[in-house]
């Protein structure tokens, strides 16, 4: 169970190729920020590139939170199989 923890998941060549497309798409929506007016309900929302920064940061927090949570709640695959409910 612990073997895979040492290194992160690897990206396939196909996915590496898609990253180029993704970077272009991100550049386009960044540029559009200065062309299209975004109506904001809150002051924070109206700040330049709020959603881009928030999306990037939120994703990192979700993954980082998951990594921390793993230390707390991850058990062996057969954790419940032996002595379910402690009855057997």
């Amino acid at each position, binding site marked *: 169970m612990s073997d895979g923890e040492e290194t992160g998941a690897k990206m396939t060549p196909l996915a590496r190729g898609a990253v180029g497309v993704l970077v272009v798409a991100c550049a386009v929506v960044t540029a559009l920020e200065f062309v299209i007016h975004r109506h904001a309900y809150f002051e924070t929302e109206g700040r330049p590139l709020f959603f881009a920064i928030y999306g990037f940061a939120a994703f990192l927090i979700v993954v980082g939170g*998951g990594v921390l949570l793993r230390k707390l709640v991850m058990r062996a695959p057969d954790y419940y199989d032996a002595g379910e409910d402690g009855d057997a």
Partner: protein
Amino acid sequence: MPELLLPGLMMILGAALVPVLPHMLRQVWMLVLIAASAYQCWHIDPGVHLTTSVIGFDLILVRAEAITRPFALVFHIAAALNVIYAMHEDARMTAATGLAYAGAAIAALFAGDFITLFIYWELTAFTSVFIILAGRNPRSFSAAMRYLLTQVTSGVILLAGAVVLVGSGSSTAITALSVETLGGALVLLAFAIKAAFPFVNGWLQDAYPEASVTGTVILSAFTTKLAIYMLALCFAGTHMLIWFGVVMTLFPVFFAVIENDLRRVLAFSLNNQLGFMVVGIGIGTELALNGTVAHAFAHIIYKSLLFMSMGAVLYRTGTVKASELGGLWKRMPLTTLFCIIGAVSISSFPLFSGFVTKSLTIGSAAYEGYFWVWVALIFASAGVLEHSGIKIPYFAFFGHDRGFKVREAPFSMLVAMGIAAGLCVAIGVAPEMLYALLPYEVTYKVWDAGHVLGELQLLLFAVLAFAFLMLRGLYPPEIDSTVLNTDWLFRRLLPAIWRMLAAPVMRLWRAVTGTAARQIAASVGRGTHVSRTNYLISGTATIGAAAGLFLAVFALLLALRYMM
């Protein structure tokens, strides 16, 4: 006069014939029943249509509200998709109970009082448990028993709530309730269990992934959305639900990151999506309730699609563990395409169904000035993208090629996934069709250029974060493991406390039964079976204790009602 037939009843009764019909006739029979039921339900206008009186209780057997039609429609769509998806297999019990389960859920939508609702509420539990049992292994059997206990508990709490409501002078009619009354609180608790609120959510992630390939798809559509429907009828505008919903949107995304079983990831994702709906109910404005109903409608379809795609992967490869999958896009290209459509739909990419429905709920939070709720929902949207938008398709179809030499999914599975994918796109491109079904007029400008841009920035930069983590080797690897969830409280902690508290009594009990067993064995001259006896006693102790405690509470409630 379609309301004179009980909605859903033809599906419940018609299910009895399913096991005995030949394969093709069975499929036609089920689809005809669903179509006839859909026709019937579609023509039931809002209002009370059929009442009766039983032992002094006025029962409202058929009643529709403004939100009933969209829920009934999508329940029928889900039922039909399930039939088509499972056409390749000869699982008669799953087919029969699945049809009856869908019929019971549809019937419950039209229940106008809590007594009638209780009957269908429990019927959904008893029919659906067979779908989990169809997993046909010890894990699914155990999960099915826990599921049944949870669902029945929810039903009995609902009945207790109805009894208390009657005792306090209210009628049993399903109407707006206050959580500040005991009856209202009990009804809310019953709904909360079925809607997988925090701390009572474990049954969902425990049971759904243990069902068969087709069973999990059936389960994903009805029970939780029935609870959402009832919450919307009884507790719209109850502000505490906003925060319950916020927690529901947030905590599953962290669990989904580390869960290895991709069907269990989808079960966490389901929980997260329910949170958005609960927030909408808590806000309770016209826009928010429109958001909840629209989201439930779209969610049932794209969640079914995602479960179907993972079911196809499980059917062909024998596993849905992310650590064992990868590179399937070359072998299963259509399944990959349909999964991606489900993934972008749930992630709310513009032109797909999630965008035109979830935006209503998030927009209502912003419009009402709930800043922190809005912040949380946006955060949860990035979380949805992580687990359902990226993790599911990437690790199943595009990750490291594991060398599976498998064929594309069976034709029937592809047809069902194709229809669901088509609906995701149709709703996303032309949401007016869905908006016309909603209880209130939709004035929210979902296609506002600034709104579309903001959503694209959020999602594309979140994907960029994924690419960054992958390129740097920082994305956590998939590890075969058990991720503890809130069901641990009921499967490990409570039994441990119970054993500790009951140890003296159990020692006495064992001493008595052991002595009796030895005396009986001595009198008949055979060996004792003390260990087997103890096993049987202890093996049923947990469920027996829970049931006993529950009945005691229920009896106390009844006693209180008659003493008052």
